[in-house]
């Protein structure tokens, strides 16, 4: 057994792995991730994942979900059952998601067909189309990806409504329309969405509204959602999530953990 302090890192993406690597000489590190492979949104084939995962010196507990941080003990559960580990610090490196409907301030009814881009893409990858004429809220990578994936599974056209303008190159697809500097203020339709009203006053017909705008930190460990005890948050809020930002966030989190550990060791 080591007398080095234990540190738990939730999220085996490049941020979490970078943090683990930076702390490998000062702490006993465990990295936990819901997904059974490392790499997060950058995937296990990314150069950084392939370098960091074996070199970071951490115990990788993949396919486990961290659920509770209480009394400097992390509870995680997976196929082998629940496991508790004591830790001197917890790093939350669980990535980001597009904003939800309430966060975007979209009023109106609650018709079917209003879905997060993450869901629309996942369903498209499995051959299920959420709308033939989707309206996609956002102008970044999530929006671009949703547009191309939905088109690939049979969407007739897609309209991007970009509150912050188009943040990427204009899609090379005549069936993808772009409305810059406008936003959806309400949706209507029963049972499925039929129209979306924009801040500019225009009402557009659609059969799905895909939410792909903005970035919110994804945090699901009870007791470490906002200001957890000795919890460090390493979640670059960017769309797209770049490797450079992930590495910087991981390094910054490692520095924060070091200072927590140092404080503890000082009498």
């Amino acid at each position, binding site marked *: 057994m080591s007398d080095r302090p234990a540190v738990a890192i939730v999220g085996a993406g490049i941020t979490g792995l970078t943090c683990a690597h930076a702390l490998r000489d000062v702490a006993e590190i465990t990295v936990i991730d*819901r997904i059974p492979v490392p790499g997060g949104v950058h995937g296990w084939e990314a150069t950084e994942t392939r370098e960091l995962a074996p070199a970071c010196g951490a115990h990788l507990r993949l396919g486990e*979900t961290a*659920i509770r941080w209480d009394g400097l003990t992390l*509870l995680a*559960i*997976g*196929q*082998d*059952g*629940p496991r508790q580990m004591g830790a001197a610090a917890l790093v939350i490196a669980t990535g980001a*998601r*597009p904003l*939800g*409907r*309430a*966060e975007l*301030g979209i*009023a*109106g*009814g*609650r*018709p*079917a*067909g209003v*879905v*997060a881009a*993450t*869901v629309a893409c*996942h*369903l498209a990858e*499995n*051959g*299920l*189309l*959420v*709308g*033939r004429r989707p309206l996609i809220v956002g102008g970044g990578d999530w929006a671009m990806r949703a547009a191309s994936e939905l088109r*690939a*599974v*049979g969407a007739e056209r897609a309209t991007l409504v970009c509150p912050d303008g188009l943040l990427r190159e204009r899609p090379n697809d005549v069936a993808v329309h772009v409305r810059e500097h406008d936003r959806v*203020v*309400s949706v*209507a339709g*029963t*049972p*499925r969405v039929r129209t979306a009203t924009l801040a500019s006053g225009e009402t557009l017909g659609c*059969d*799905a509204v895909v*939410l792909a705008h903005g970035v*919110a930190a*994804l*945090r*699901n460990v*009870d007791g470490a*959602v*906002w200001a957890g005890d000795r919890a460090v948050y390493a979640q670059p809020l960017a769309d797209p999530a770049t490797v450079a930002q992930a590495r910087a966030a991981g390094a910054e989190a490692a520095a924060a953990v070091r200072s927590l550990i140092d404080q503890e060791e000082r009498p």
Partner: protein
Amino acid sequence: MRDVAVIGGGVVGCAVAWRLSGTAARVTLIEAAHDLCEGASKGNTGIATSGGDCHPGTLELELVRRSSPGWEALCACLDTPFHRIGTLAVALTEEDERRLPELLRDAQDTGAAAEIVTGDQARALEPLISEEARAALHFPDDGIIDSIRLTIGYAELAARNGVEVLRGAPVHSIERDGDRIVAVTAGDRRIATRSVVNAAGVEADTISRLAGGEQFRTWPRQGQYWLLDRELGGRFRKVVGGVPTPVTRGIYCVPTTNRSLLLGPTAVDHEDRTDRAVDAETLDHVFHAAQRLAPSIAREHAIKTFASNRPASDPTYRIAVDAEVTNLVHAAGIRSTGVSSSPAVAEMVRGLLEGLGLPVGDQRPDAITELEPLPRLLGHPRPEQLFARDPRYGQVICACEQVTAAEIAAVHGMAVPPTSLEGVRKRTRATGGRCQGAFCLSGVSFLHSLHAGRRPPQIAVSEPDATLGIGAHDV
């Protein structure tokens, strides 16, 4: 031939079905929507009032008071979360404060426990309330309840006792022979019955009209709400409201039994019974009113906004045999206190049916009286016990609400299983958390598809024609 057809699968109809299910009566419960608990019973504050805010001398108060002491025992039987945490009606202004003694007298007339506390005492009871709170009226016996689990729990226990539950079965016509109903046609079924209970909520007037019964009017009273993150809601110890005025009870901050926080409701009468739209202006009003009570509430805690329609009518609490149709019992006009009074309403309806000569007097010895609880991972003190019971507790599908594959599988084995993703949410909370399904909707859809035996294109978000996808593409 059925003894009783109960029309309406909200909290009142399901409570009636539950109460009758232990008797010898043959009962059919009829719901127009694809699932139970699709109206006011799913969109409400989840407060089980002890009656301090009801009017003395009313049937409403009587039934609320009869129901209130029994919640702990009943909820234990129905696997429904309930916590008697109490309400603080907070006086923020001098004028509010001046009204408290009068409100205390009114509350004391109801028989509910009530006391006036100072601002400091109120802050000791609930540290999250405003520094501006001058005093408060405390109702210690008010509780919070999961109204969805209660409604579905009533129906589940009823179904296990042999009550037939028809969903997606709107009532088209009601046949009469003289002054009696002989059959109800709902969906594609004609149900011959010896009596009918009208528990159709905001549609109770329509049912009475179809039966040729008394003419009265019910209409929707819309409430808009915010749902806030459970990391905030879990810190609330009390239901917090303002001082009610003669015009409105105002906006409440209600911690829910799953630790989220509800802000609302507004109360706006309107005509369109299907309109559940929210608007930015009303939501802003709700938020600001809640923030005045508890300043630490912030927009970044918001995870959902929604609206629902509760039934308004004149008079309220029409619980009686119809004046024209001798075997029609109304349980109508049960406004916003329907959850709080539901056990006593059910017992009163049973008594009325007994008076009509129906076999609802004695309990059957073989009837079950409690549901086996379905343990939930969220907040569970001994997760290893859950895992030993079913290893699927190790698979967290909805990370925000920590709902596992075991829980999703279990609800599909219920007597009244979910038939939509909304049905899964209502029974498990999956997709109802802070990411609103952004990460788990695919996984929940997959499990629902598996357990319900539906191919992905047929998976419904809510009603059967509200499908998740609009068609599969041959990739």
